[in-house]
C-alpha cells in the first residue's frame, strides 16, 4: 500500500482526507486505483496530473515504479514557458 | 494607379525596382530584393529591427517609403561583412555571446556601426542611449553593450 497526498481542493472527493492509501506499484496503477476508489477524482485525473515521487516530478510515465514507502504527491499537470 | 520605377544603390550595387507608392523600403528590401536581414518587428519605427543606413544615416526602413530610395545609397546588414571577413562588430558579438535568438541583431549591428563611425570612442552611457531605439527582448542588453565597447577599443587601437 502507498500513501498519496491529495491537494486541498480535491479533498471533497476523498471525504476530506488529505492523504489516502492505495495498492499500487506503478504510477499507472496508482492513478487507476485512485479513479476507481474515489470517482470524484476521475475528472481531474483525466484532465491530467503530475506525480511527485520522492521529490521528483513525473508528467507522463505510466510504469514508473513506486515503493511502498515512497512519498507520492498528486500535483496538477506541469506546464512551462 | 501604376507602380513607380525607382533606381537606387544597395550595399554598393545598382538596383532598380517597381513599387506601390505606399510600399516601404523595408517591404522592397525583403520582398523584392531577397534582403531579408532587415526585419519587421513592429512596422511603426519603435523597435529598430528594420534599421538600415540611408546615405550613411541610421534610419528605420519601415518609416522610409520605397520611392524615397531614388538616387540614394542604402546600407543593410548583408553589406556589413567584406566577403568572408566579418566586420569587427560582427565578430565581437559572436565572441561575447551578444545574441540569443538573433532577430534584433542585424538592426543592432547596423546601429552600432553607425555609432562607431560617428563616435569612435563612446562611453557606456552613449552606447546605451544610441541603441535605445533597438529593442532586444532576449539578452537584457548587457553583452551587447560589452561587445560594442570592446569593438570600439579594438578599432581605436588599429
Amino acid at each position: 500500500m502507498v500513501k498519496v497526498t491529495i491537494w486541498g481542493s480535491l479533498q471533497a472527493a476523498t471525504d476530506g482526507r488529505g492523504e489516502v492509501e492505495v495498492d499500487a506499484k506503478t504510477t499507472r496503477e496508482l492513478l487507476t486505483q485512485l479513479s476507481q476508489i474515489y470517482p470524484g477524482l476521475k475528472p481531474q485525473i483525466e484532465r491530467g496530473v503530475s506525480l511527485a515521487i520522492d521529490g521528483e516530478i513525473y508528467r507522463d510515465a505510466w510504469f514508473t515504479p513506486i515503493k511502498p514507502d515512497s512519498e507520492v504527491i498528486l500535483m496538477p499537470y506541469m506546464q512551462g514557458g | 494607379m501604376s507602380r513607380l520605377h525607382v533606381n537606387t544603390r544597395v550595399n554598393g550595387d545598382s538596383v532598380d525596382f517597381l513599387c506601390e507608392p505606399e510600399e516601404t523600403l523595408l517591404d522592397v528590401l525583403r520582398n523584392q530584393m531577397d534582403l531579408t536581414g532587415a526585419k519587421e518587428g513592429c512596422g511603426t519605427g519603435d523597435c529598430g529591427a528594420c534599421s538600415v543606413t540611408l546615405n550613411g544615416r541610421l534610419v528605420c526602413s519601415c518609416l522610409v517609403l520605397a520611392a524615397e530610395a531614388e538616387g540614394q545609397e542604402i546600407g543593410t546588414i548583408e553589406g556589413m561583412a567584406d566577403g568572408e571577413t566579418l566586420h569587427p562588430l560582427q565578430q565581437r558579438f559572436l565572441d561575447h555571446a551578444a545574441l540569443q535568438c538573433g532577430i534584433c541583431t542585424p538592426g543592432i549591428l547596423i546601429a552600432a556601426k553607425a555609432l562607431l563611425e560617428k563616435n569612435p570612442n563612446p562611453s557606456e552611457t552613449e552606447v546605451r542611449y544610441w541603441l535605445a531605439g533597438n529593442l532586444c527582448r532576449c539578452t537584457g542588453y548587457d553583452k551587447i553593450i560589452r561587445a560594442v565597447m570592446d569593438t570600439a577599443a579594438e578599432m581605436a587601437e588599429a
Partner: protein
Amino acid sequence: MALDDSNKRDFKIVGTRPLRPDGVDKVTGRALYGADLSAPGMLVGKILRSPHAHARIRSIDTSAARALDGVKAVVTAEDFDPVGDDFTQDILDNCLARGKALYDGHGVAAIAATSEKVARLALKLIVVDYEILPHVTDVDAAMRPDAPVVLSGRAQENVPAGLSENVTSYFEFGHGDLEAGFAKADKIIERSFKTAATHQGYIEPHACLATMAADGRAELWCCTQGPYMVRDVCAAIMGLDSSQMRVTSSEIGGGFGGKTTVFIEPVALALSHKSGRPVKIVMSREEVFRATGPTVSSSTDVKIGMTADGRITAGQAHLRYQGGAFPCGTVEFGAQSAFAPYDLDAVRTLGWNVLTNRPKEAAYRAPGAPMAIYAVESVVDELCQILSLDPLDVRMKNAAKKGTLSSYGPTFNEIGLMATLEAAKAHPHYSAPLGPNQGRGLSCGFWFNFGGNTCVSLNVNTDGTVGVTEGNPDIGGSRASIGMMAAEELGIAYDKIRTIVADTSSLGHNDVTDGSRVTFSVGLATIDAARGAIREMCGRAARIWGIDADAVVWKDGAAMPSGANAGEFPPMTLAEIAASSHSTGGPIAGHHEGTADGAGVSFGVHLVDVETDMETGAVKVLRYSIFQDAGKAVHPSYVEGQMQGGAVQGIGWALNEEYIYGEDGRLQNAGFLDYRVPVASDLPMIEPVILEIPNPGHPYGVRGVGETPIVPPLAAISNAVSRSAGVRLAELPMSPPKVLKAIKAAKA
C-alpha cells in the same frame, strides 16, 4: 539517467565558451526566420479581427471580398469541422471565432490574395453583422455572479458555488494549522496586490508559410517553440494523420512561452487547401498584442505572520487570475510556487482561474509564478522592515532545504536555495552604501522545470565528424550546448560536431522547447546517443582487433584495449573507426528516444538597487545582481544570457509593461511605443553569479535555468522602490504616475 560522478568528472569542453554554430548566419542576416521564406505562387493571407470586446456574430458576408480580383480563398470558422477535444477546439476557436467574438482582436474571417494590397482591400469588403454584448475585462469583476458570461459550461467540478460561470477552475494547496500558526506570530501583515497582463514581447511577430495539397499532404514553415505540437494540433484540426503533415521550424525570433501554441497556422493551412496555393501569413505587431497570448492579470491577497526574530509562522495567499476568453491553467502554478522558497509549518494557498473578454493567455516563462511570488516576497519584505530585520537573514532563517516539506506537497531533495542566499549575502552588492532616495530590494525565485519526450539521432560521418539531429528549436543558444555535450562525451573537438534542428518527419516526437527543458533533456538524450555510438565503435574496434567487445574501452576520443590482458593494440580514434565503418558493419550512429524525468527545481535570488525621483515618480535601476543555481553550466555565456534576459523582462513587468483596456473593452496600447519594454538606456550591466549544485538526475548535473530568472525581479524591484520612496507599493507596473500618486498619498 543519473549523474555520472564515477570518474569525478573533469570536463574538457563543458563549462567553456565556444562560438555558437548558428552565430555567423545571425550576424550576417542570412538566418531564416518565420517571415523570411517565400514560395512560388505564394498568396498573402490576412485575418479580419473583431473590433468589439464581446459580440454575437449574426452573419459574415464575404461575397464582395470573394468577387475582388486577386482573392483566391476565404475562410471562417464554418470551414472547420468540430475537433474531438476541448483543448484543441479552444485553440481553433481562438484562431477564428465560432458564434461569438470574445475579445477585441479575435479573428473572425480570413482571406488569401495575390498581393498585400489586394488582401488589405479584401478584408475591408467583408461585412460582419455584430450584436454587441456586455463585456468584462477585470479579474475581480469577472468573478461576480452578475458578471457578463464569456463562455458557459466550462467550469470544472471543483469550483465553489456562488461564483460566475467565468470561474473555470479552483485549486487549494498547503499543509498545517493556519490558525495556530498565526497565533504564534508577533506581527501579521495582510495585503492585496494587483498585477497587469504583460506580453512576452518577442521581437518577431508570428509568421508561417503553409502548403496543403489536394491529396491532403501538408508542409508548414513557421516560427514556433514546438514543431511537433504544431503538427499535432494542426493535423487534428485539419483532420489529417500526423505523418501527412511536415512542420519545419524556422529560426525563432523569441518565444518565452508565447510560441508554444498556434494562432495563425490552421488558418493558413485552410486557405492553402481552398486555394491550392502556398499561403503566407505574417502577423502585424498590433495583431500580436491584440490576438496572441499575454499573461494573466492577477488580484492576490496575502497574509503572513512572523515572530520578532524573523521566523515565519504561517502563510496564506488567495490568487485570482484571468486568462482571457478560454479556460486557462496558470493559477495552480502560482498557488504552488508562492511560498516554495520557505520551510513552513502552516501554509495555505487558494487559486481561481477566471474568464474575461481578453485574448487567450499563453505561457510566459514560469507561468503563474512571478505574480504569486511578487505578492509573497513583498509581504515578507514589509515584515522585515517593520521588525527591523535583515531581509537576507530572514530568508536564510526560513529557507527551504533538503528534507523540507514544500508548500506544494513534495519533500525537497538537494536544492540550491541556501547556497544562492549565502552567495548574495557575501557579494559586495549587498553591503554597498546607498544614497538619498535609493533603496535595495531582494526576492527569492523558484520554478519547477521538467524533462519530457525527446528524440535525438547522432551520426558519425566517415571523415570523423559527427552530426547531431534534434527536434527542439533553439531559442537561447542550445545548439552550442548540445554540440558541447556530444563533443565532451565522444572525446572529440567541438568543431567536429554539427547540431541541427530537424523537421517533424526526421525524428520521433519532441516536446515543446519550454519548461527550461532543452539543455537538460536534449542534453541527456544526446549524451545517451553518444554513448550508444561509442558502444558501436568499441564493437567495431574489437572486431578489427579480434578481441571481445567487453575488452574495449573508450577514452579521449578513441577505442583502446581495457588492459594489457586484452592485447597490445594502439588506440583507434573515432575518425579511424569511422573511415572504415562501411566495411566493418555500415554507418555508425547512436540514438535516444525517451521521456526525461528528474529535471530538478531551480532557485534564484535577485538583488537590486534603485533610485526614485520623488518629483516625477520615475525609477532608475542602478545595480542588479542575480544568483542562480544552474546545476552545471554547460556554456556559461548562455546561462548568463538566460539570467540577464529573464531579469530584464521582469524589470519591465515591474516598472512599465501593462495591457491597458478602455471602458469599451478595447486594448489601448497595442504597440511598442505605448507598451513600454526596457531599452538599453534604462538599464545598468546585470551581474550574473552562477552556482553549481549538481542535479543528480542528469549525467553532467545540468538543471534547467531559463524560467526562474523572471520570477524574482517583480518583488525585488517593488521592494527596492518601496524602500527608496518610503511607501509600500502593491500594484504593478510601478510606472511613474503610479509611484508619484503613492508618494503624494503617503505625504497627505
